[in-house]
């Protein structure tokens, strides 16, 4: 039946087998089929970035990806960022710098930032702002998020030197 698909994927380190309509959006598959409601939907048009997750380590907008396309993929959502109850450095930095208010865009921000820092470990403020422009936030005015990212980047550079950073 070409109107439905079977999917096998890994999400936050756990293997899942799913069956859904071929039209099911990845965001809805995570939220409704896997009960991982940490990924939020802000527009369904692929513009606001709130739904951004990590697919094979790369930031991707989950509202414009079909769940079918995640077959065989390794996905990380906000629920999978902490390791053994410990915040990821980016999560920690967001907390310490008050980089979230309502928290609705936060899942998208975290995924976008984590991916960005992998491509650029020592960004300037302008580069951070450019990267963050992929996700819309209505609460913070971005200033504290920028601060949090620069802070996290610095800490992660330090931890990398110590070989202490786990890979997300």
């Amino acid at each position, binding site marked *: 039946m070409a109107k439905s698909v079977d999917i096998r994927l890994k999400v936050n380190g756990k293997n899942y087998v799913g069956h859904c309509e071929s*039209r099911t959006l990845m965001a809805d598959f995570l939220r409704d089929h896997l009960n991982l409601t940490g990924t939020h939907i802000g527009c369904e048009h692929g*513009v606001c970035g709130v739904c951004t997750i990590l697919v094979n380590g790369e*930031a991707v907008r989950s509202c414009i990806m*079909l769940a*079918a396309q995640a077959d065989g993929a390794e996905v990380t959502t906000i629920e999978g960022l902490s390791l053994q109850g410990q915040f990821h450095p980016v999560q920690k930095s967001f907390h310490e710098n008050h980089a979230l208010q309502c928290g609705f865009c936060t899942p998208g921000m975290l*995924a976008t930032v984590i991916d*960005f820092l992998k491509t650029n470990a020592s960004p300037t403020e302008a580069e951070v702002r450019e990267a963050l422009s992929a996700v819309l936030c209505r609460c913070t005015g971005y200033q504290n998020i920028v601060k949090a990212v620069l802070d996290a980047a610095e800490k992660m550079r330090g931890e990398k030197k110590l070989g202490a950073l786990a890979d997300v």
Partner: protein
Amino acid sequence: MKPAAFDYYAPTTIDDVMVLLKRHGGDARLLAGGQTLLPMMNFRLAAPEVIIDLNRIPELAFIKVVDGRVHIGAMTRQRSLEFSPIVARDLPLLHEAIKMVGHLPTRSRGTIGGSLANADSAAEIPMVLQVLEGEVLVHGPNGERTIPAAELVLDAMTTSLADDEMLTEVRFPVMRSEARFAVEEFSRRHGDFAIAAVAAMLVVKDGRCEKARIATAGVSSFSSRLTMAEEALEGKAVDANVIERAAKAAAEAVEPVSDRNASEEYRRHLTKVLTARVLKRAVQSKGSA
């Protein structure tokens, strides 16, 4: 909104795509990166009966240099282009322009073939194809053919590809080491579609412009080369006066569109301003690294 229902296929070879296209014809849409098609489907502005997902065809994603040309598979992610050492070295104009294409997360999925086949009038990659005089390789029921940049786009969002054809590869001549280039874009916010963008490549030898290639995005219904502006430069020493004349020629040559973002007059004005800025920056650039 949620998309309407469709039959979904994920073929693994180009031949399988051809079979599916033959069987379903106009009812089917090819799904590449999905950064344009899925939003349209989520608006229910597009409701194809059949989706042919191209993301499971490994032979469609590659970047390699063959005989002085960079060959790029249609399903190569824009993100791969962004971080490709080959593109940085041999196609530095594309390397600079790619960062203007959406945002990193859209480049994770968006493809070069998808962008070219979609032919959005404000997209940067079609503009670069024009400037670098690239060509695309197209697969059809009767085999392959190549389409040069100048013949690819017919109108806004309309290419010369037939319904049963598929773009499989893009080829660019390797940029010469003496090529100087620049690209500038004007949009309301970073990452937005260009209201106006200009890209230029100049080959300057012994103080004279040997070759000039200039194209726009966002100004007209599709990217095309500004041959009158190119002619204003070729054979001349590129000084401030020549740049101004070329910018004026560019503004006169374009057929700007008018929409909520900008009037025809303003787009024409932007073309002049951006052309001048691009040429000035190109001349000052030291050529590709």
